């Protein structure tokens, strides 16, 4: 409830020119100042996990790619890792390198995309057009290597679907050279531009304590100075050998402030980091098979026999993505599939970031976490036709009741009346 009569409500969305995807903000404002924000999500919820549990695993893999068109390598990598753990499938070393190359290419395209959108939100359309013009180079390489500009269909359980041929390597090297030469120019345009700094410095601040408390992930957490990167913390594929280090504004010689400017610093530096990783992978990639199951029917037969559960994680451009999968023998479909997308973790960061900011800064603050609503909208409660909101206590109660139902006796926590 508004405390004084001067506080009033502004709803923004779900359809709004500043937001490409449907999400609704309700701002409590006092004059130009934002006092509080509420976020209503669920407009892009398509029930993907439900559909995935009704299709065989190969179809589910293609569906996972359509969770998000920008993270269309990240989700398939996470689900393949989960299924490979569940079914005990080995991935040949060359395929692991290829997966890393593709996911870093995706990171470059996603971060450049974000930089352009951020420039647009600041009203700096020249910079939007410049960044999106140079972004086409990495899309050209992705198209050359995978056959498509978006939705690449590269990872498959047990490996990857396409190899990089010796003739393609010089093209990738040319792209690396192109971006290396250009990165300094982009950094100049973003980070040394006084008008960009004026609009982004100390705007939408997320302190390290808040980032930690709210479980922020990816560049949103790293811009606040947290050294948090799944590639560094829980290495998978060949990231351990590549020695990835989380990038924070300290790498740019600045003490992290957690504002929008710092988020731009982290993302632009990560473009450079991805270029280095791709280059290393190209040289260190061993010869060999690209998949342990060249024949799809054999793969499907193996998956149908498999029994177990697995977790797959990946550092998507926006942060940590986790897929959980459970397989039962004799069933083609996954029995359980759960996706935790990075924006889901970052969503709550909006609350402290919007506090006491100006209305004019809403678009850039909203964009600064690089929200991906279609990734995030995983749960949508509808009860008796009307949307229902469940709080932490309700979820905890539901969870305990289910444990009791399954085990047939009260859970220890309920018995002692304790809480978390």
């Amino acid at each position, binding site marked *: 409830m508004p405390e004084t009569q001067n506080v009033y409500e502004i709803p923004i969305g779900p359809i709004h020119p500043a937001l490409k995807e449907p999400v609704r903000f309700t701002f409590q404002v006092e004059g130009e100042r934002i006092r509080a924000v509420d976020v209503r999500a669920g407009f892009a919820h398509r029930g993907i996990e439900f559909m995935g549990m009704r299709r065989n695993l190969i179809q589910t893999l293609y*569906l996972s790619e359509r969770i998000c068109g920008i993270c269309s390598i990240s989700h398939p990598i996470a689900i393949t890792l989960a299924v490979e753990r569940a079914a005990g499938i080995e991935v040949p070393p060359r395929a692991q390198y290829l997966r890393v190359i593709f996911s870093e290419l995706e990171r470059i395209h996603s971060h450049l*995309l974000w930089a352009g959108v951020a420039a647009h939100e600041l009203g700096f359309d020249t910079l939007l057009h410049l960044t999106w013009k140079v972004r086409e180079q990495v899309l050209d390489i992705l198209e050359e290597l995978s056959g498509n500009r978006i939705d690449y269909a590269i990872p498959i359980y047990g490996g990857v679907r396409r190899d990089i041929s010796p003739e393609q390597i010089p093209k990738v090297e040319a792209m690396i050279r192109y971006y290396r030469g250009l990165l300094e120019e982009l950094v100049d345009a973003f980070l040394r531009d006084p008008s960009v700094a004026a609009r982004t410095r100390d705007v939408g601040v997320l302190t390290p304590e808040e980032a930690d408390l709210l479980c922020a992930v990816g560049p949103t957490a790293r811009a606040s100075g947290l050294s948090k990167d799944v590639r560094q913390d829980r290495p998978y594929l060949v990231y351990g050998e590549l020695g990835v280090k989380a990038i924070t504004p300290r790498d740019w010689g600045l003490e992290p402030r957690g504002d929008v400017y710092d988020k731009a610093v982290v993302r632009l530096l990560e473009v450079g980091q991805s270029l280095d990783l791709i280059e290393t992978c190209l040289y260190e990639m061993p010869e060999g098979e690209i998949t342990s199951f060249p024949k799809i029917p054999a793969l499907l037969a193996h998956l149908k026999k498999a029994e177990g559960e697995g977790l797959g994680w990946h550092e998507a451009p926006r942060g940590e993505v986790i897929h959980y999968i459970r397989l039962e023998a004799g069933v083609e479909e996954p029995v359980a599939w759960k996706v935790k997308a990075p924006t889901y973790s970052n969503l709550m960061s909006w609350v402290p970031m919007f506090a006491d900011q100006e209305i004019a800064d809403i678009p850039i603050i909203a964009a600064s976490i690089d929200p*991906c609503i279609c990734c995030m909208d995983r749960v949508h409660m509808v009860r008796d036709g009307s949307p229902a909101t469940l709080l932490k206590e309700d979820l905890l109660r539901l969870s305990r009741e289910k444990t009791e139902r399954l085990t047939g006796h009260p859970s220890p926590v309920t018995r002692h009346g304790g809480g978390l």
Partner: protein
Amino acid sequence: MGLSSFKRALWVFHIATGSCNGCDIEIVAALTPRYDVERFGIKLVGTPRHADALLVTGPVTRPMAERLKRVYEQTPDPKAVVVVGGCGSTSGVFYESYNVVGPVDEIVPVDVYVPGCPPRPEAIIHGVVTAVAKLEELAGEKR
């Protein structure tokens, strides 16, 4: 396609009805220098009330259906609706979801379908140009 000239600039409004972002970023790619549709006078506008055509992406989720109808009604006549992407055209991979009420032509009348998952920017431009031809036809009937 019977298009003698671009007699007027076509302004489009983009509405995402639960799409996966794939088509949406390709629409933005069509606006930026490599494809640069603004040289033909095609540009994205911030409100359906300024638009000649709607670019609809996504399979239409349950909460977005009502909003899509409202945006369609807010767009002044004569107007054209261009569906971008496979899921908006036919539900595509999202065909048996409990929260998808589309495809788009179940909700609002559609003039042009651009299939693809996602379609290339060239295909999106072709779709919008087809919509221009359709609007010119409509304008011709009124005269």
